């Protein structure tokens, strides 16, 4: 029996799965087995066709798939002897963000990542992967521990966003994220980030500064969820499909602008269709990245990490210097001009006075 939930665009896959299930219930005969085998071949080719041309919005749906392997699955398959570390030592233990140490191919590493939860009860316990400020503070505390003892850090990102609630604001979620981003930049130990599901804006970036940022093929990473973007810019949340395309939140798009370093391929049909293969592919990429980064000495590694983020948004590509059309390759062109040459701006409250000097 197939128990994988199918997404709405996976209609052809769902009907094939249903047929196979129905045939499975019949008495086993050669004719039935042949029929099942041919249906399976059709299933594979349908999947391959469908997944070769996923639209950005469909990728969003795949990235959010409830059966998509997440941190807990990775811990179970790839790591051994996991010991969870709880609490930020200040306020509470956040359940949406998990930290702990484990062995990865015999090497002790620190694991940090979001957990969304499986069934409804667990989802509520995990707050649907929306971490509160104490989650980010716990993450930094654990990462400091890894730094102190020279253990590499592996981060799995899968969150819709940081929790937007009253208590989050009261306890300074913005400050918690900001401090994490700043301090992760100087953490003196290898940091590998894997965006495995939803990379939801600041909630993701708050644990996602590393030497390598890897991303699974159908994961997404965005400044705002498509629904939110549609609600603000289109003033209608059902424009989410258009917003998903406009935001360029897919792995290939992000690789192009240097936001991620590598795409981890997923099996045909997405990670949820074949979690074992998906996990193995993550494992391969992770081993390679960790070996590469660990081989570099600390100072060079930190410099490379800084440069990587410093150079996101490049002169001549994402922005231009209109006053200084200099040949490319020269150092930062800086043209200063004194205040006197600036167009004098009138603040909003003065603007209406134009042409009508006050009588005095």
């Amino acid at each position: 029996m197939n128990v994988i939930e199918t997404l709405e665009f996976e209609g052809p896959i769902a009907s094939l799965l249903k047929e196979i299930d129905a045939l499975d219930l019949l008495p086993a005969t050669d004719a039935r087995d042949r029929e099942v085998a041919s249906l399976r071949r059709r299933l594979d080719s349908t999947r391959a066709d469908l997944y070769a041309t996923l639209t950005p919005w469909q990728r969003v749906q795949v990235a959010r798939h409830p059966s998509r392997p997440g941190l807990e699955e990775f811990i179970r398959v790839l790591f051994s002897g996991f010991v969870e570390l709880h609490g930020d030592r200040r306020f509470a233990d956040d359940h949406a963000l998990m930290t702990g140490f484990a062995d990865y191919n015999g090497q002790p590493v620190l694991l940090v990542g979001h957990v969304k939860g499986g069934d409804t009860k667990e989802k509520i316990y995990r707050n649907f992967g929306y971490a509160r400020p104490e989650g980010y503070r716990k993450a930094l505390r654990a990462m400091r521990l890894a730094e102190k003892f020279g253990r590499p850090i592996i981060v799995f990102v899968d969150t819709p966003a940081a929790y937007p609630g009253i208590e989050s604001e009261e306890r300074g979620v913005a400050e918690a994220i900001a401090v994490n981003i700043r301090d992760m930049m100087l953490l003196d130990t290898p940091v590998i980030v894997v965006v495995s599901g939803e990379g939801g804006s600041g909630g993701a970036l708050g644990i996602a500064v590393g030497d390598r940022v890897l991303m699974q093929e159908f994961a997404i990473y965005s400044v705002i969820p498509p629904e939110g973007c549609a609600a603000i810019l289109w003033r209608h949340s059902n424009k989410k499909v258009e917003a998903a395309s406009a935001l360029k939140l897919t792995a290939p798009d992000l690789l192009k602008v240097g936001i991620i370093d590598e795409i981890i391929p997923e099996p045909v049909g997405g990670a949820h269709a074949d979690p074992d293969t998906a996990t193995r592919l993550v494992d391969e990429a992770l081993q390679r990245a960790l070996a590469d980064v660990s081989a570099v000495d600390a100072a060079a590694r930190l410099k490379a990490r800084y440069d990587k983020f410093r150079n996101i948004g490049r002169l001549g590509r994402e922005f231009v210097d209109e006053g200084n059309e200099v040949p490319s390759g020269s150092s930062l062109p800086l043209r200063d001009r004194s205040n006197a040459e600036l167009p004098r701006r009138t603040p909003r409250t003065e603007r209406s006075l134009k042409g009508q000097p006050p009588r005095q």
Partner: protein
Amino acid sequence: MAWFKKTRKPIAATKEKSSRVPEGLWLKCPGCAQVIYNKDLSTNLNVCPKCVHHFRIGAAERLRTLFDAEWTEHDVDLASTDPLEFTDTKPYKARLQASRAATGLKDAIIVGTGGIEGICTVVAAMEYDFIGGSMGVVVGEKITRAIERALDLRCPLVIVCCSGGARMMEGALSLMQMAKICGALAHFDKARLPYISVLTDPTTGGVTASFAMLGDLNIAEPMALIGFAGPRVIEQTIRQKLPEGFQRSEFLLEKGMIDFIIDRREMKAAIARALRFMGARATLPAPAPASPAVEPELSHLAIESSRQ
């Protein structure tokens, strides 16, 4: 029924009369609902003389309130290339054009170096009228260069935040500016140079969750909206009305997120005083102060103004 018809006429008549008053000469303060003479407002740094309501001001105006005299502006001509070729109900390029025409700036920030009571300081001020002061690649780059410049000059850094957050039209590139700026601030912090973050109305989203909250001092103007998630998003999540004053400067002060609240008219003196505490020295000739140079008792003033 005739009773009611009669009473309507005089109301209509008064409406016509009101058009004789020249437009924009007087302004109704949203804080106290009193009528203010516009010139009184502009000579008072756009603070309501009656209720201390702080009107939002532009980036250039902000720099004028902080610097002693003229300043040197940096990276004037950096402009976005619309890297995602983003179009919502309107192309992003058209939005950029409209904002450039309206503000005379090429993006939502001005960076300048000048004197604050004689202390050479790099100041970055965000411009709300440019697509909501949002942070895209250009804002990220200009702030990062401002930090690098301050690091080179070994002088203090002040960033005046006034922004709705990261700029959606540049997608994840905008998000990554948070990491770029925070990284530069990490090095700035290590160099033991002072950084003051000034929070003004509004400071939200990715700006709050990066450089706005990382100052050696985080100081705010009274009643400014400061938060991570927008109030409407939070209301949708928790499905109830938010309490009065939620995410205002006074709320953040109470929750321990900012050092003090300070009136705009005392902002410059407060910054200079704090910079001196953090080891900065006046190297530029300070011009004769327009107002008497009295060192304000910062925390007292802050509490006074917020209670009014």
